[in-house]
């Protein structure tokens, strides 16, 4: 595109200087003289003063270059023609005339600042979503998950959990229902659970198993499989205490807590894992964030299950305060310590809440004396049996798989890190 003369002007008003020009079709380096005219740059070959090209100021764009070099390109061209100017006077003159070159990088800095501010806003919004939005969404979505799917999820997790908890590799012997004692205990357990189920009217079948672990713990998997530990049976002093704990677990089942936790964990993983990027040290932040959100969420869930337990125990005719009684007794044995990120509200708070909700009063135990005795012996070795219950303190299990801990709504701490209170 020609403008005025085809040869370089000689007057001093038009700044000019040497430069290097690449025309974008061939890699030859051309030494040129550049003239900063009124409307644009005129590029003349240094050898024969022929006009090679003209670039309007409006089309000029600054390209990345080493310090001291002004590298210009043309906007809107498919060819990557380049003009490299090392002459500082000429460069300065061109920057004066071409606004698009953004002298000093002011426009670029402004843009970056906008980016950072928007990002900060996004971070705030993200945290808000994670802390409030995700649990709400999980609660709304959990009832929509079909029960069949939840049972499938539960059975998928079940084998993982078994593998983690069954540290002595007892296999089928891990569940206490074999042999004379086991069978009798099983019958008593079924009676107890039956009375609770009648009062609860759960949306889908529930199955309770007592397993050989000395910890005081019980948890429910999605799909309705409830595990109670031997330690729970051992420490209970009345059938209502066991029933209270089981009713609490049924509360988790009724509220679809397992599914909710999985949905919530998935949502948090997505937000903090994927959306956030890959920056070094980010892993620690992600874990910290997930832990904090999860534990605050868990407290609400556990409190709701406590309320459910009180309701069911009342309907079944048992002592609704039994749950509080056993909780208080068990934690009095242990040194409570500071549980900031405990997955449960402080047990004292729970005991107070349960007692406030449940009316004190007489009630008949949910199991007769004979059945209670049988249940107490559920994990005892049968006279002719081969399995032995592990006595004495055992080390806490290794940390469970993430999906296992997400899916099981633990009664005690996370099921795979059950607390030990020394030997019985």
């Amino acid at each position, binding site marked *: 595109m020609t403008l005025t003369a085809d040869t370089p002007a000689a007057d001093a008003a038009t700044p000019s200087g040497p430069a290097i020009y690449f025309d*974008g079709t061939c890699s*030859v380096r051309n030494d040129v003289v550049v003239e900063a005219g009124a409307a644009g740059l005129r590029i003349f070959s240094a050898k024969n003063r022929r006009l090679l090209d003209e670039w309007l100021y409006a089309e000029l764009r600054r390209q990345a*270059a080493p310090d001291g070099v002004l590298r210009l390109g043309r906007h809107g061209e498919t060819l990557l023609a380049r003009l490299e100017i*090392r002459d500082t006077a000429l460069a300065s003159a061109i920057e004066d005339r071409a606004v698009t070159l953004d002298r000093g990088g002011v426009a670029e800095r402004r843009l970056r600042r906008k980016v950072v501010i928007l990002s900060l806003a996004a971070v705030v919004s993200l945290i808000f979503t994670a802390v409030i939005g995700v649990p709400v969404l999980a609660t709304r979505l959990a009832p929509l998950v079909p029960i069949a799917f939840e049972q499938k999820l539960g059975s998928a997790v079940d084998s993982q959990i078994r593998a983690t908890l069954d540290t002595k590799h007892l296999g089928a012997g891990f569940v206490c229902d074999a042999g004379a004692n086991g069978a009798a205990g099983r019958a008593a357990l079924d009676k107890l659970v039956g009375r609770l189920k009648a009062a609860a009217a759960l949306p889908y079948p529930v199955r309770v198993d007592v397993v050989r672990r000395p910890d005081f713990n019980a948890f429910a998997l999605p799909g309705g499989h409830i595990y109670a530990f031997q330690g729970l049976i051992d420490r209970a002093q009345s059938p209502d205490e066991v029933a209270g704990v089981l009713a609490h677990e049924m509360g988790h089942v009724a509220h679809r807590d397992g599914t909710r936790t999985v949905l919530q964990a998935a949502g948090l993983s997505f937000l903090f894992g994927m959306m*956030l990027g890959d920056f*070094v040290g980010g892993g620690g*932040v992600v874990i910290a964030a997930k832990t904090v959100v999860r534990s605050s969420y868990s407290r609400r869930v556990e409190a709701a299950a406590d309320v459910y337990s009180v309701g069911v125990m009342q309907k079944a005719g048992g002592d609704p305060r039994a749950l509080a009684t056993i909780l208080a007794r068990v934690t009095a044995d242990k040194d409570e310590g500071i549980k900031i990120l405990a997955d449960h509200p402080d047990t004292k708070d729970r005991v107070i809440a349960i007692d406030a909700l449940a009316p004190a009063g007489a009630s008949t135990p949910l199991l007769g004396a004979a059945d209670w005795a049988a249940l107490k012996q559920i994990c005892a070795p049968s006279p002719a049996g081969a399995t032995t219950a592990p006595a004495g303190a055992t080390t806490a299990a290794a940390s469970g798989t993430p999906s296992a801990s997400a899916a099981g709504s633990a009664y005690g701490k996370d099921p795979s890190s059950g607390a030990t209170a020394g030997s019985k």
Partner: protein
Amino acid sequence: MTTAEAVSSPVAAAGAVRFLGNEGAYWRLRIKGAALVVVTLGIYRFWLATDVRRYLWSNTEISGDTLEYNGLATELLIGFLFAIAILVPLYMVFALVALELDMVAVTPALIGFALLLLLGEYALYRARRYRLTRTVFRGLRFDQHGSPWRYALYALVCWGIVIVTLGLAYPWTSAFIERFKMRNTSYGDLHGRFAGRGLALFWRGLPIWLLVVGVPIFAIGGMARLIDWNMLGNELAASQGGDDSMNTLIQNNPQLAMAIGIVISAFSASVLVAIVLYPVFQAVKLRWWISGLRFGAVAVTSQLRIRQVYRVYLRLLLYLFLLGLLASVMGGMTVAVVLGIVGLAHNATLTQVTIGAISLLLYVVFMIGSSTIYQVIVAAGLWRLGAQTAALSGEAALDGVRATGTASSALGEGLADALGVGSI
């Protein structure tokens, strides 16, 4: 040499390759960028990556002209979003399929791992294309052809072979992969090749392999001969795998103890040697790779010395040590001061939360700090070293190249970022 001096003689010795950049400027770029990345929880990383590439490319001078990176941060951001749009449904589908097929833990995890590896290699190849097409030299862009899926398959198979041969096949698989990549790389109409031979790398790397991998293998072989396997097998069967079995086994078989001791010391020595020889491996590999690059008649040679690479890594250790020292001192002082203040409130929860927050902060600072140090001293350091010790021959061919090719999308970059693979 300062950038001004370097630039004032634009036509350096023909065929020379130089790095013009000033390390101080790069430190500032990296530190500021790292701070912004943390504050924006990773969103700023696209801008940082673009700045880094502009710095490295613009300061790499080949035969008197510098490279140019003309990619935009917004392209990277869009590529990332695109990749998320692909990956999220993919992850969900995968989880659902695994659930439906009732598989637990191991099988889907392995398949998933292999698929992710494949996807990662696919992303790497496409990301390489993105970077090449955004690299401009003398007004012409680089380009890359070839099917990314084929590359991914090749890469996966090669990794399998390397693992199976305990690393012996690495020189040949490397040569194969580099040949594939370079044969599909072009500068304008100048086609790339890779002339490095696997055998050459093998000879150079053999001493390292013998010391790092050979010694443990030898030790294991020796151990196998020292032990009476039959007796050991019988004893294992008899002891029934109780907790004490290991101790009794060792008591009964002193040779077993010695053999285990030999193997452990062999592995420890191997790890130590691997650490010490790592710079040698890097130097050998880098020099072999650079001197194998060909573009048409242009050949690259490398004068890289192992001791230069050692200097880089020793600097790294020094800086990391200093960072660690600084972090501990500052961290210790901060913790003491803050705890003193917070302790006045006598609130256990607040104290614990504060300690948690400070620890997290220290962790993030140390991680970001070490990553930045690594990037400036090693990544950019090796880039600079590689450039300064490289030279071209047949560079006259650089003058007659014609333009071809178009820019490619940033999807590969996005995928690589989302999957956590990728480098500069």
